[in-house]
């Protein structure tokens, strides 16, 4: 990975939540929500971050923005380390790094109109009033909202419109990086398409970098340049988009790809269902964290934890069997969707 020129560089980021029993305040353990992840985003690049619910994607996003205090690690934004920065400087950084939140509804103050919500960052960074109005007008237009809609309250908009407003807010300060936390997961397909298109357009027009978080690989596919797959607090695979869809190396990626329903009744594919739920991040499985759910797990998987390694150039995976010795079942499964 390249050094100083990266827009965002995350090194070995960890975020543990202490778990205390509410009544006794006794430390029960730690949720290792993010357990040592590293990635980087170049200017104008989109990194898709996918993974099951609860694997730590949002936490990673928040920690990068210092909305949560990281347990350890480094986050470099344009050559400046964020995590150790003092509050005043942080404000300047935040101007360049904005977030679109997972739940567009709850992240907007229900008592403010859309315009006021978009105005908020402009006020914080003390833009003159007149310019504010102008800017809001432009932003609304940019994300495809009318002035009239701007005067409404969040609950008076549809989910898609709200999500657009959220994007407008994030764009208000002309940031260089947007962290989009599952911006479409809760939306209808039709609206989902609008948002993805919008974000792709903005990327092209404004040269934004994105960290695009999602749990659905089919969604990420349309916008990302590179994709990182997370499982239980760790990145298990990371590579160029095409590469990932063509030849996923980690069995988890494979099952993730497999789980996406294909809107064509003619294709009746054999499902490899993941058994069970995501294990508890308080007490992650030993060895490879995926091994209890992995159909190709071997003895070694239970004992030693695979490191993220560059299996083929630019393609990183954390599986003992990635690369040369991928197990049979896995490769079979991979070939399925490719046939169509």
């Amino acid at each position, binding site marked *: 990975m390249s050094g100083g020129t990266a827009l965002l560089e995350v090194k070995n980021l960890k975020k543990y939540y202490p*778990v*205390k*029993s*509410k*009544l*006794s*305040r*006794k430390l*029960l353990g730690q*949720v290792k929500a993010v357990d040592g992840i590293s990635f980087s985003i170049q200017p104008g690049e989109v990194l898709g971050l996918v993974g099951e619910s609860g694997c730590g994607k949002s936490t990673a996003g928040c920690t990068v923005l210092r909305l949560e205090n990281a347990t350890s690690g480094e986050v470099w934004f344009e050559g400046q380390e964020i995590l150790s920065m003092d509050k005043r400087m942080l404000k300047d950084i935040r101007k360049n790094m904005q977030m679109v939140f997972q739940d567009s509804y709850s992240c907007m103050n229900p008592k403010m109109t859309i315009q006021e919500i978009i105005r908020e960052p402009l006020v914080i960074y003390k833009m003159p009033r007149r310019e504010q109005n102008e800017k809001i007008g432009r932003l609304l237009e940019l994300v495809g909202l009318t002035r009239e809609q701007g005067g409404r309250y969040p609950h008076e908009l549809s989910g898609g419109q709200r999500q657009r407003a959220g994007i407008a807010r994030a764009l208000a300060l002309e940031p260089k990086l947007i962290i989009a936390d599952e911006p479409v997961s809760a939306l209808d397909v039709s609206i989902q398409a609008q948002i993805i298109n919008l974000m792709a357009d903005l990327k092209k027009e404004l040269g934004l970098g994105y960290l695009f978080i999602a749990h659905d690989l089919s969604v990420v596919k349309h916008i990302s340049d590179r994709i990182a797959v997370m499982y239980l607090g760790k990145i298990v695979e990371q590579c160029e988009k095409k590469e990932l869809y063509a030849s996923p190396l980690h069995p988890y990626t494979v099952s993730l790809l497999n789980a996406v329903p294909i809107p064509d009744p003619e294709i009746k594919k054999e499902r490899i269902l993941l058994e069970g739920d995501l294990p508890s991040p308080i007490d992650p499985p030993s060895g490879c964290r995926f091994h209890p759910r992995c159909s190709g797990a071997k003895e070694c998987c239970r004992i030693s934890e695979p490191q993220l390694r560059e299996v083929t150039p630019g393609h990183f995976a954390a599986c003992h069997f990635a690369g040369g010795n991928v197990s049979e079942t896995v490769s079979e499964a991979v070939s399925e969707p490719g046939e169509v």
Partner: protein
Amino acid sequence: MKSYFVRRLGVAVITFFLASILIFFIIQLPPGDFVTYAISQSGDSAGSAQVAEKMRQQYGLDRPVYEQYFRWIGGVVRGDLGYSFLYKKPVMELIKSEFLWTVIITGISFVLAWAAGMFIGIYSALHKYSIGDHVFTFLGFLGLSIPPFFLALILIYLLISSGYGIAGGLFSSQFVNAPWSLEKVMDLMKHIWIPIAAISLSNITEVMRIMRGSMIEVMSQPYIMTARAKGLKKHRVIIRHAVRIAMNPLISLAGLLAPKLISGIVVTAVVLNLPVMGPTFIQALKSQDMYLAGAYLLLTVILLLAGNLIADLALGWSDPRIRLDSK
């Protein structure tokens, strides 16, 4: 759970001591002391300063304030609430039976008020904006602007003018000192409903309003729909699923109710002549009978702290999310 309890108890103990200092300080604030009171009461030809000095010595009122405090709190810790100057007997002995009656009367009143309040609240929520709902809301706010003792007074007036012939109190005088018997119980019944009615009537409003709001909120929750979709009987849906959860805000309110057990009845008790702690407390304050007043206030504090603790525990019991929420 256990350690939480111990911790809370620890904090409560510290609060208790701080409160005791505060209480002692406030009781001591008015100029003069019990002796001043005793003298002011002894008619127009009063005792001499010499007697006053003697009395102060006897009661330890001539000591520095902090010393008086430590003597008092030391006693309290050992379970001795001190000595009432006015009644010339240990405070403990004095308030025992009054405390019992206080708790009985207000306890019953609160139970009734809460039962009625909850019932009306549930009714109002289920029949939102119906005539019944409006009527109850209106009456509720009326209740809010009439203090309970005024209600008691009006009640007594109505009773007397209709010839009921009971002017308050808990017993007719022939039964006051009589041993318990069926007649005495009957006599008690004839009297006790009056304060209970007055106190409960004026306590219904709050419960009713909270219950209504809470019920309306809960009734629109999806799990109520789930319960109905299961084919449960209507009353079962309402009671087991809706009320059970809607009661939650009332539980914290109930925590604050404990001190009200004593304080909620003070003025009503004066008007209705009840053998409860309130009037004694007022009397103790006025006469600067500080240990008696202090004991009363300490009791209130203990009830407040205990009430809050129990309410928190009850909240944990009633809503399992609170118990194990790791956030």
